[in-house]
């Protein structure tokens, strides 16, 4: 029985990411999203690159319906807690919701973040890059806090 599992997705394949560090030694899974692959038609070279990234991670690799596979993996390990990394993709949010619909009551899904490039707390005008850059530039160029 594992306390938690990690759901690794393609927007964060860093072996040192916050989720893999927080759950070091816990089972982790990556699922190729068959529906997305069908929609995007990505070529073989992209698949190979991602797969090579995965081979350096301590993950089980599967394919199919991501939400169903992640929930099934958690249940195989009797885990009620799932850690994953943030993504701006609306599909990520949708999959998170669908995973929770599959999980037993009382389960938790935690979305973690790596250190941000720029301050994420202040409100930034995104109409044009120049406006964004003028509001974050000083903070960004200061570097590591």
């Amino acid at each position, binding site marked *: 029985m594992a306390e938690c599992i990690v759901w690794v997705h393609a927007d964060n394949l860093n072996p*040192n990411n916050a989720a893999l560090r927080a759950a070091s030694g816990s089972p982790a899974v990556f699922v190729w999203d068959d529906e997305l*692959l069908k929609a995007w038609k990505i*070529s073989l070279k*992209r698949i190979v690159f991602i797969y090579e990234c995965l081979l350096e991670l301590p993950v*089980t690799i599967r394919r199919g319906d991501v939400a169903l596979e992640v929930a099934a993996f958690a249940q195989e390990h009797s885990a009620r807690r799932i850690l994953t990394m943030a993504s*701006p993709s609306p599909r990520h949010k949708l999959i998170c919701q669908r995973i929770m619909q599959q999980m037993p009551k009382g389960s938790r899904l935690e979305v973690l973040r790596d250190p941000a*490039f720029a301050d994420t707390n202040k409100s930034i005008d995104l109409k044009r*890059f120049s406006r964004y850059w003028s509001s974050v530039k000083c903070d960004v*160029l200061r570097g590591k806090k």
Partner: protein
Amino acid sequence: MADMRRDFATRAELIAYLKAEFPDAAEVCDVVPPSPIGGRKAAEERLRVVNLKKYEATRNFLDGEVTRLSPYIRYGVLSLAEVRDYALANTKSRDEVEKFISELGWRDYFQRVYAEIGDGIWEDIEEYKTGFSAHEYAAKLPEDIRAGQTGVTFIDDQIQTLYTTGYLHNHARMWLAAYVVHWRRVRWQAGAAWFLEHLLDGDPASNNLSWQWVASTFSSKPYYYNLDNVLKYTGDRYRGDPTAMGHQAFVGSYETIARRLFPRIQIETNTADQPRRGR
């Protein structure tokens, strides 16, 4: 569902396995370049050899000192914050790396826009500022473009590069995108989806929003260029008779090209010969 394999003696064995597992992907294009190799180890090696001093001076040239970090950044193998911190730690002067860091900023910016508008990145954020409405652009990518047989030598060369390497220099991406949208009057969405099939760093936010920037649906005016611009940044490759190379449509001043591409409107011409980003 059974687990997928993790044990491969060689890269060729991995490629053969993935070709069998993902036949649709192999059908799109089954060429796999010898590099870059995916993974954190390769990413760190790449980061160590980046020459930021040369980057600043030569990055707009097709054979310039670009970093080739984008596939690693796209999949979060390297975070923007750590690449920025690496750049700051390895320079004597912040000014020397400011341009590089601002380019990282473009990705952060696009990711923030994506987080805000979601699948709206596939819609025109603003109207085209070309004198044409969206419905006047073709919805589908023409076959000669997909086949890399447009007859425009520098365009066909870039299409081959895209297919065989999964990488295009930023300048080449802009030339190709502007060719598709403005010279061929095709909706940017068709071109963006095509790029996502092949670019190793293909990210819907950076990709689509850059196409929109070129198209003018996410910028104040369309991006276009002329043959002088291509010649300047490609060395001697395309010097010679423009007609023999299918380059006639790119010959002329920025004013001439603008009148040809956007006859219904007056475009404030910009004679700068660099990618007009960051305004």
